């Protein structure tokens, strides 16, 4: 017994990455265990019910899971844990949703008491129709998503075998001229298509858009793409035109400014969730065409109302794309039940090792508040405290020093507070992109940044998502949305696109010492450290000394 894996009684799995069997072990446990932390020596996976059900949905059985654990484990696996795994996995598939020739959608069970148990639940009762026989009950087709969501909460996830509608056919092909899907992208598309619906988890910069395009080329039907914002929508359109057989005219944009519905339509979450007089006026978009595929970009940001609409779209294929399944609001289970199980993921570091994303050097620079600032910080109102420490003047000096140090490279300065950004922009002589900047202006600035006409760009959180800035090699984060982990991931993602010259990327966080800022930074960084991006910590004085 000298395997690479240690199975802990709290259902975490510790994988020693330097062990010769580590790669085999990872492949064996990946289907059912979520990678939780991937620091340099020991990776931590967690076995959760969702993970086990994911594995069941992907066709693995308890036997395989137990075998994988027992085979690679260094120490004896706690018996109780094996029993628990078998029992948990056994819960999946006791109930199945399927099509019935006479009754439409039906919920069938292989274990009658389970059906009795769930039917007793008050939350299930309104979703089901007549009892067809002892093991079968009719389900209103419109409640297909709702019932899956509720059953999952009750701990009896249903297997959805009711299939998908094909949707309106539309020819889409990948235009692989001089490029090709990377192996992991191909694998992701394949896994998704095989599973029917589900989520693909890839790090920022690993080409999620292409996975989307690949899926569309598989589906060859009309597609609705939901993205976070307008800039991102344009980005998608640009990319699709470039990478597929689709033309500009086939792709519509459905946003605050334009309301085009075409065979491929890209809509923003914002426009969908706009409410007027208590109703969502743009909901008809979902019914406006017979969509064969719905793509959700950045699933971890999916707003709550979209979950609700999604519950009604269970007969359509759904593809979720994200860099992380971590949701700050903890609605991972809704993603599982409504969009689908995780179909593919690859750890960040692994893709970096394959050279598809740039290696990054992460540095946290700690600045000291001056004595007068400390006093002012201590007396600030609680809700003002973070803003106060995050926008301290010293940060400006440090930022300038870093910018000086990397003069000539493409630098992004990212922050949360407009005043601070404006001030930085002024001092650095760089343009500022913020919420009020018009889309045209944004695109213009992005374009000139891409062309290298300007080398420093100051952006607010509007640039957090989905804008492609291929040549940024240095990002300096001066303030963030409190302790948001996914924001940190997105921002790091800005500099991780592979560089033409194989340059190392740099990610700086400027943090005020001994304040809330530092606590939030620690929270955000922990996430990245767990992804294998170790931080160095530097004192501001050292940075200033280096920079001068």
């Amino acid at each position: 017994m000298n395997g690479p894996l240690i199975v802990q009684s709290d259902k975490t799995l510790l994988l020693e990455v330097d062990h010769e069997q580590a790669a085999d072990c990872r492949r064996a446990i990946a289907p059912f265990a979520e990678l939780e932390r991937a620091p340099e020596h020991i990776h931590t996976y967690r076995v959760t019910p969702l993970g086990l059900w994911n594995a069941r949905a992907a066709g693995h059985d308890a036997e395989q899971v137990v075998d994988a654990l027992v085979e690679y484990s260094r120490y004896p696996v706690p018996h109780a844990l094996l029993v628990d795994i078998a029992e948990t996995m056994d819960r999946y598939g006791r109930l199945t949703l399927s099509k019935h020739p006479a009754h439409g959608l039906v919920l069938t069970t292989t274990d009658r008491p389970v059906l009795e148990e769930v039917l007793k639940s008050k939350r299930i009762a309104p979703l089901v129709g007549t009892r067809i026989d002892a093991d079968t009950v009719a389900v209103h087709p419109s409640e297909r998503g709702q019932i899956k969501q509720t059953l999952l909460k009750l701990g009896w996830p249903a297997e959805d075998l009711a299939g998908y509608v094909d949707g309106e056919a539309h020819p889409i092909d990948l235009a692989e001229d001089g490029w090709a899907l990377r192996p992991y992208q191909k694998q992701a598309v394949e896994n998704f298509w095989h599973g029917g619906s589900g989520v693909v988890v890839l790090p920022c910069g690993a080409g999620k858009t292409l996975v989307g395009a690949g899926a569309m080329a598989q589906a060859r039907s009309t597609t609705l793409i939901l993205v976070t914002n307008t800039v991102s929508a344009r980005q998608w359109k640009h990319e699709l035109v470039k990478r597929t057989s689709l033309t500009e005219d086939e792709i519509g944009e459905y946003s605050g400014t334009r309301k085009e519905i075409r065979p491929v339509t890209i809509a923003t979450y914002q426009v969908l969730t706009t409410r007027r007089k208590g109703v969502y006026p743009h909901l008809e978009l979902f019914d406006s065409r017979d969509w064969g595929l719905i793509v959700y970009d950045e699933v971890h940001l999916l707003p709550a109302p979209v979950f609700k609409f999604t519950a009604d779209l269970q007969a359509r294929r759904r593809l979720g794309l994200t860099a992380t399944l971590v949701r700050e609001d903890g609605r991972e289970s809704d993603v599982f039940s409504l969009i689908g199980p995780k179909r593919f993921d690859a750890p960040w570091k692994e893709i970096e090792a394959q050279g598809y994303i740039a290696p990054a050097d992460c540095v946290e620079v700690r600045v000291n508040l001056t004595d007068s600032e400390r006093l002012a910080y201590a007396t600030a109102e609680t809700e003002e405290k973070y803003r106060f420490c995050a926008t301290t003047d010293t940060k400006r000096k440090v930022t300038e020093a870093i910018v000086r140090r990397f003069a000539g490279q493409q630098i992004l300065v990212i922050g949360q507070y407009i005043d601070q950004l404006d001030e930085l922009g002024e001092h650095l002589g760089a343009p500022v992109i913020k919420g009020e900047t018009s889309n045209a202006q944004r695109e213009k600035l992005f374009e000139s940044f891409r062309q290298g006409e300007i080398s420093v760009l100051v952006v607010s959180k509007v640039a957090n998502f989905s804008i492609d800035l291929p040549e940024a090699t240095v990002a300096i984060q001066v303030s963030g949305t409190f302790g948001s982990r996914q924001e940190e991931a997105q921002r790091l993602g800005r500099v991780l696109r592979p560089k033409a010259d194989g340059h190392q990327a740099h990610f700086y966080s400027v943090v005020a010492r001994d304040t809330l800022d530092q606590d939030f930074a620690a929270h955000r960084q922990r996430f990245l450290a767990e992804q294998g991006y170790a931080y160095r910590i530097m004192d501001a004085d050292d940075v200033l000394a280096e920079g001068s």
Partner: protein
Amino acid sequence: MSTEEKSAAPRSLAEALRVREDVSLAALLRSRPDLITPVPTDLTQLATRAGTRASVVRALERLDRFALQTAEALAVAPDPASYGELLALMGGDEEDPVVAAALPRAAALLREQALVWGADDRLRLVRTARELLAPSPQHPSPTGLGPTVREATAGMSPGRIQEILTAVGLPSTHDSVSAVSALGALFADRRRMAALLAELPGESREVLARLMWGPPYGQVTHDPAAHLRALLDRGLLLPTAPGTVVLPREVALHLRAGRAHRTPEPVPPPVEAAASHRPQVVDATAAGQALAALATVAELLKEWDEGGPAVLRAGGLSVRDLKRTAVALDVPEPVAAFWVELAYGAGLIASDGEADERYAATPAYDEWRELPPAERWAHLAAVWLTATRTPGVVGGRDAKDRTLSALGPNLDRSAAPEVRHRVLALLAGLPEGASPAEESVLARLRWERPLRGPRGEQREAGSTRDEDLRGRIARWTLSEAELLGVTGRGALAAPGRALIGAPEAPRPAAEAQESEPEGPGDKLPVHHHRMPPVAAPPTAAERAAATAAAARLLAPLFPEPLDHVLLQADLTAVAPGPLERGLADVLGVLADVESKGGATVYRFTPGSVRRALDAGQSAADLHTFLARHSRTPVPQPLTYLIDDVARRHGRLRVGAASAYVRCDDDATLDEILADKRAAGLGLRRLAPTVLAAQADPAALLEGLRAIGFAPAAESAAGDVLIARADSHRTPPRAAPEPVPDGPPAPDDTLLSAAVRAVRAGDLAATTPRKPGPGGEGGGEDAAPDGALPRTGAAETLATMQAAVLTGEALWIGYVNAEGAASQRVIAPIRVEGGFVTAYDHTADEVRTYPLHRITGVAELADDEG
């Protein structure tokens, strides 16, 4: 064991005992230890005691199923019965060979236990046992048999009996006794009986078939249908009460082909293996679990190190504290209760006995900690094996509906050690590496110590639960053994095997069968001549040897402790195996444990680093420590974290002072500090112009004045306080209530109760009574048919027992626990175990009196009405 009573057949149990060999008497006393507390003076007394109800019940409850079935069969057999008759009842007419092979053992066992006596041709069941086991309308027998023809026809008119004789074609007789005998003989005669039954209509035979396995009673209307009438006419059904009929025992036995039991169970059900694992896997898993057990106990003690949870007023741990502990240990609550109880049983934790009582580690814990891991485990396991406290009942309710709390009172279940030992012994009987099917273990235990059939309601509610308890204890034993690492993947591991004193060397399966007759492959009944072990409890020395052997076997199974950890940039340290003690202790302070199991994951946080600094470590110490024990370079953020926390650590200082002296003039303060008379004030200079004092402000003022200064007192806000005597006030107080003269006027309830008590006392004092013989004390009873000297205690007992049967009221003299004598009138309900339970007319309720406190007894002259 065929009893060697070659001399004249014994006439009583006492005589039967007298001719027994010493070995056989010793066996009796070992299996029924209640007979020698106190040691009886002679065999007559021993026989008497062996015949008391409490002792017989206890002995019956400890019989295995087949022996009990044999006893039940004897209870429905003629008294005395021959071995042949008994065999016929057990084996039926076709003589089941398995039963025939097993019966000698059961008979010998019953004889050894002094439940049966007499030679093989005259087997007699002890009278009390017969009464307990024989069927009666109130207490149907587990055999499902009804009364004999003789019993069922008692009180039937002679004319009716003669009619029956005629109906079955027997010649009429001149008296009922011979008529009943003739009828009984007919029913017992298989051939004639078959002919008789053949005449009956099919419907009638169906009725008989319905009643044949019991219960033997049925309802009939006033005007029974023809097929029932046919049965009644022939005496195949006999009336017992209006509308009720019974199937006579002889008829039932005929229908059953002579068998007293539907399913005799001569062979103990085998313990079946549910799964089989390689012994190495079993041992490794068990060792892993044993290690986890040690870690859990250590963690529990650490959790409670600085003051554990409070002790409830009634003793024990509150539900909330148990919940909290369960969360801290990350286990379900019942499991947490198990660990807490285990640590308590091992003497590692106890109540601290302070005014504000809390649980805390005992000094024994510190000693235990110093032991090598295997011995630590062996200590826990040995304690677990013999403990009577059963954590399994925690959370349940006791007889008084109070919640049973962990560490609280009433958790002792005396059966626990024996059941635990037995379960493990059964596991040891399986081939190595085989885990048992739980149900088969339970079935086996039920066979060895069966619930006494539908007789349950006869015993007190408490003991019914106790029976059920054995099964529950067995289940708990299986799960606890797994938790503790006595078993691994359900199979007994080598250290566990050694722990119960089972042979430790792995044996080939064939050999195992021979030495362990309980083995599953062992189907030959001859092996069962050996008794399931009458728990001859191992001596302390044997237990110590077994424990040491277990520790010896376990030690090499534990992984070597590591002296290094892996540090990672996400501020965690992973110990990929158990750590050396010192290392684990320091890391435990320096970092928080995040995940346990084979490995341990530690997380460094500012709080945990501060804790290490508070414990007296310096940043440099910590750096050195990490550098020495890390196999990988210390990550920069961790170094930074330690420095960052150390930088701020101790910058603020906090201390206690009772008062201060403030003065703008440094020189004055110098003067005070230099003055010897100020030494008692505990002054210390905090700043040039401030002194802190340990003395309180009043004493400080007084002291400074005594030295010759003129200090002024300062308020919290810094103002000078003006000294002025305050008026003294009490806290709010209520005005006194008026106290009237004499007691309050009695109400109606009180009055009527008083009157009843007076009247009852009157009855006891004035009832004319028969004079009882003098009470010299020292009771001795004899065998049922022996002449006996009568003494006071015996007379008391006899009169009481008689009164139970007749339902008469008695007059008794009674001395209570304080020594006060009183006279009472009671109607005894039950005499048992030295107590009489009776309806007390004097107190107007049911009470229980110890017989030894009853000074004398007399019958009331008149029937009280």
